[in-house]
């Protein structure tokens, strides 16, 4: 197993830039999820790591070795495709053994390792079946088997659960994570499903329009989103944005929205006059009659363990995750109170989070990246 280091990776298809300037490191044994909507460049990034696409610029290091322009076959990686790409003219055993055959592993050794892998994935009973008759989950396991049988430097997976039905996907999410816990393989996993990414990954890179918006642990991404895009993309329902226009000095702890003062984490930078948005997770909202920020109940979705109540405010619709016990009547006026130290402030022009006590760590990383880029641009 090895660490993957991606430096200023760029890929353009003619005029279209799929990946702008990505830099990140996947530590040895780490599980990284590349998360984003379709067309955000996540699959292109993965294919460049695999060697199926050559980058327009930048470098890729696998276990310290520069593999940027090496052939896929020389990188010693494994790739799980969205549609599995099991060779239809071979049975399960031959499919799993195929990568070993190319390495010239002796037949007896191939047999042993294929059976060992099949046992690990609990597919040893279907080894001699044709792959065309297999159910989705078994196909998935065979594809995984083909990936792990050769003990590669890393695993790359391109939405491997995308074609499975929802119920089975949950099972596979657990299986994949358990497998990762057992073999500690460096993994890069591409998905557009935030739940998969949150449930499995050690780190998540949220991508949009070819840019990594944030690279951090799932907790950090959820609690301290670096941009409005990330805040909106992660979480279901997503983060609420209360928009207001103001200029705030460094050290400010109060935002004035719709005539009501709202407490928020202390700002660590001046914010010029302009449109701002206060980001509030639905679970950080409660109803308080004392609160000056008012709204009218617009609707409620009962979810069993809790409920999502939508409130119409002057700043737009706000969705709150509340205990399921009380029921609310549409049209009732309520006051909204927030958990003050969990709020994020965003600058609507740049879409970035404003540095605050909560967001300190996140922005430090971001500015460092930017400074490095500026520095290099200067030297270049």
């Amino acid at each position, binding site marked *: 197993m090895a660490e993957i280091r991606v430096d200023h990776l760029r890929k353009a298809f003619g005029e279209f830039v799929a990946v702008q300037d990505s830099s990140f490191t996947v530590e040895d044994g780490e599980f990284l999820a590349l998360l984003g909507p379709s067309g955000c460049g996540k699959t292109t990034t993965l294919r460049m790591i*695999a*060697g*199926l696409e050559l980058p327009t610029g930048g470098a890729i290091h696998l276990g310290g070795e520069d593999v940027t322009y090496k*052939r*896929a*076959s020389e*990188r010693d*990686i*494994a*790739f799980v*495709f*969205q*549609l599995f*790409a099991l*060779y*239809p*003219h071979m049975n399960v055993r031959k499919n799993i053994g*195929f*990568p070993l055959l*190319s*390495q010239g592993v002796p037949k007896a050794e191939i047999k042993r390792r294929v059976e060992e892998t099949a046992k690990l994935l609990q597919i040893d009973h279907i080894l001699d079946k044709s792959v065309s008759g297999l159910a989705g989950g078994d196909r998935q396991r065979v594809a995984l088997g*083909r990936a792990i049988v*050769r003990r590669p430097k890393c695993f790359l997976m391109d939405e491997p659960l995308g074609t499975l039905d929802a119920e089975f996907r949950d099972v596979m999410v657990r299986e994949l994570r358990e497998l990762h816990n057992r073999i500690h393989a460096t993994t890069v996993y591409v998905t557009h499903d935030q739940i998969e990414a949150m449930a499995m990954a050690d780190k998540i890179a949220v991508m949009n329009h070819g840019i990594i918006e944030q690279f951090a642990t799932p907790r950090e991404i959820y609690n301290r989103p670096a941009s409005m895009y990330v805040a909106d993309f992660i979480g279901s329902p997503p983060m609420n944005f209360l928009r207001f226009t103001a200029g705030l000095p460094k050290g400010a702890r109060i935002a004035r929205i719709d005539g009501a003062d709202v407490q928020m984490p202390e700002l660590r930078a001046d914010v010029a006059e302009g449109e701002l948005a206060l980001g509030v997770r639905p679970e950080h909202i409660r109803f308080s009659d004392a609160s000056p920020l008012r709204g009218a109940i617009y609707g409620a979705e009962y979810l069993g363990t809790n409920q999502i109540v939508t409130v119409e405010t002057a700043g737009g619709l706000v969705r709150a995750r509340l205990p399921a016990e009380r029921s609310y009547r549409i049209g009732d006026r309520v006051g909204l109170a927030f958990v003050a130290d969990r709020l994020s402030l965003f600058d609507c022009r740049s879409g970035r989070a404003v540095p605050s006590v909560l967001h300190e760590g996140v922005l430090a990383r971001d500015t460092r990246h930017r400074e490095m880029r500026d520095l290099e641009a200067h030297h270049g």
Partner: protein
Amino acid sequence: MSTTKAAPAVTAHSVVEPSLRTKRIAGALVILYALITLVPLVWIFLTSIKSPPDSISYPPKILFTPSLEGYCNLFTTRTRQTPDYIAALPPPSGVCDAVTRERNMVIAGPSNFLPRFANSLIIAFGSTFLAVSLGTLAAYGFSRFKVPLADDLLFFILSTRMMPPIAVAIPIYLMYRQLGLSDTALGMMLLYTAVNVSLAVWLLKGFIDEIPREYEEAAMIDGYTRLQAFFKVVLPQATTGIAATAIFCLIFAWNEYAFASLLTSGSAQTAPPFIPTIIGEGGQDWPAVAAGTTIFLVPILVFTILLRKQLLRGITFGAVRK
């Protein structure tokens, strides 16, 4: 009540499934058509087992005594002798000997049919192999790589089929004479390959386009080169398309008459231009011509029957997914 009664009527008029009556009529029409197309073949076969007088009798004989004379005449050359000479010969050593003597002739030696037939086999199968091999590689290239001006090239390749090949017969005749390719098996193979390769590229590109790229990508990640991936993964999956293409190429090369009669006369002559010449040897020998034609049909029949499953899947490709 009335609504429940109406339900079966609705299913009977299903849009997807034709009614039994429609199926029967369609079936009958297909059988009728098959019979009509079979008539000439049956006629050829029957003629091949008639005696020469029976073959030209009018009205045509439906019932006759079968004779192997056609086949004997096809494979032999004969010389005319006096009845006295024939009577003095030792008893006939086989069926053909006996049949020939009845016509006051003796067998002088083997005819050219077998060597010509062998030429046909070599040239047709050889050119099919070449056309399909080149076509597969070219189609793979067009399908998988960014070939500059790919569309124009494909159109150019197809344009070689836009005129009847015989239109270029004279330039090819002159060129072949200069290059020493006239009347050689190699020359004929190259010619048929050139004609067939455009068909092969177009047909196979369609088939290879249907094979997901992920298979090769998976193989390349599994440690194989692109060429190995092509042979180990793409080729096995393209067999249906290759078989269908091979049959089309073979049928063309096997049946081709015009170029064969123009460019071959001796050692490289194929069966199609040879078979009509049989008629000149000893009167109007229709049974021998029919025998030659019957035998000529056998290889293509066998080849097609062997590959019929692939062919059926092949010619409906795109419409029916595996």
